């Protein structure tokens, strides 16, 4: 096995893993902070992808640029959905279960709405650089992968800085770790939950755009994405941003290496074997500490 193939596969894997990390970070946050397992998370990502597709197709706006419009738009949509659907169920006795049932329904609705608006045909996001590559010596990196990676890295860094450096972000973490004390010091839990949910949905949108740069998508693609969401969140630890990012990288490295060394048929076996191992031995993810 030669070095070029290994390094190429490794870096391609890492680039892809980062995109899954961005897609997963919001899923992880709503799960960790609100105990809401948002089954429709991937569907919102897909919505972001479709919005980027339309903006590119009809207005020629590059996905990176249009993300500046569609991501905030998703934020607002998510605020509305929170008020209408999510907030009532956070008073349920078993929020996890209730949220899964509710968001499963929401995912089906979103899928059907997308199928009506954009039709069931598969779509491909093809900005001008879509089939170019960055050539470094013997290595080729597809521009969409490079852009997706960069966008994901920026997204995750932004989320990290938000949680770490801003008052609202700190309140999100505080509310998750110790909701009662957070309330005593002036944190409005409803407000924080809404922000968390909306932020999660908008990162899903950004992640969806990044993923759409890599693969084609159809209204039902979110089901496949969801599997990878669970993977990064369980490996990275629920609610853990750095963990999610690292999990994305680890999964990318493992996928990349198994693509280089093993028959392709074994790649899924290896990655999902990893999920099983984590569920059995480290159900809290790679980190002991429940950090951000």
């Amino acid at each position: 096995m030669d070095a070029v193939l290994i390094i190429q596969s490794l870096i391609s894997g890492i680039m892809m893993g980062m995109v899954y990390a961005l897609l997963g970070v919001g899923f992880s946050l709503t799960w960790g902070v609100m105990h809401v397992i948002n089954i429709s998370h991937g569907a919102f990502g897909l919505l972001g992808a479709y919005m980027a597709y339309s903006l590119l197709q009809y207005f020629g706006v590059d996905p990176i640029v249009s993300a500046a419009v569609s991501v905030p738009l998703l934020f607002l949509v998510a605020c509305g959905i929170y008020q209408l659907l999510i907030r009532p169920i956070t008073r349920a006795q078993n929020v996890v279960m209730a949220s899964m049932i509710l968001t499963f329904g929401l995912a089906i609705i979103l899928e059907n709405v997308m199928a009506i608006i954009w039709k069931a045909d598969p779509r491909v996001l093809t900005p001008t650089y879509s089939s170019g590559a960055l050539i470094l010596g013997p290595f080729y990196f597809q521009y969409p992968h490079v852009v997706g990676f960069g966008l994901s890295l920026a997204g995750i860094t932004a989320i990290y800085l938000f949680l770490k450096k801003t008052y609202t972000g700190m309140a999100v973490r505080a509310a998750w770790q110790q909701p009662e004390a957070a309330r005593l010091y002036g944190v409005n839990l409803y407000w924080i939950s809404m922000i968390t949910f909306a932020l999660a949905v908008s990162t899903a949108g950004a992640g969806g755009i990044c993923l759409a740069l890599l693969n084609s998508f159809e209204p039902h693609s979110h089901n496949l994405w969801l599997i990878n969401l669970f993977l990064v969140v369980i490996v990275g630890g629920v609610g853990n941003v750095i963990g999610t990012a690292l999990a994305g990288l680890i999964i990318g490295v493992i996928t990349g290496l198994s693509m280089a060394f093993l028959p392709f048929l074994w790649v899924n076996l290896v990655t999902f074997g990893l999920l099983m191992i984590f569920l059995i031995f480290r159900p809290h993810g790679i980190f002991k500490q429940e950090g951000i």
Partner: protein
Amino acid sequence: MLSVENITVCYGQMKALREVSLEVSTGQMVALIGANGSGKSTLINAISGLVPIAGGEITWEGQTLKGLTPDNICREGIIQVPEGRKLFPAMTVEENLIMGAYHPNVRKQAQESLQKVFSTFPRIADRRRQFAGSLSGGEQQMVALGRALMAKPRLLMLDEPSLGLSPKAAAEIFDIIRGLNKEGMTILLVSQEVMQTLAITTYGYVLENGVLALKDSCDRLLEDPKVKTSYLGL
């Protein structure tokens, strides 16, 4: 300053507090004592707005607190240090303190307050980058106190500040509390450490099974035969 009038709090069918009244005036340090489960925490959680009140009224500087949520009550300057400290375990000491100044009214002075807290508690200043969960009990209580001070309290309510601490650390905490009151802080101190509590407070209330059993000046409470047998084991 704070006046609690005949409040009743129910947990489902059970009455946790029955028509309890209490007064705290500016600059005073008032003790609230009683056995485990007598309703002490319920009372201060009712003041903080964490538990709904079924009857009676709480007024703060002449205004009712009815219908206010905990974050609004926090804005009024009524700050609670909850039982068990309830720090944010995966946040650093400094972040915990900063969270104390979350409320917009006090947020601008956060850096200033932080320096003040660090000078009051030099021990936690050394540990500002550590996760709060990794500190010892005494240090955690200092962080909890510091976090409350960051909120610039006008009424500080402390729920069992010495719980789970070594006698030495407990004594240290009580010293600090007394010092705060001497500087003019109005304090409502909830504790099972009856002797130590009554030693530093001026007026005390005794709760028994959700009902106010006694209220008097601390000197007289210390002499009260009932207090002696029930709480001091004399």
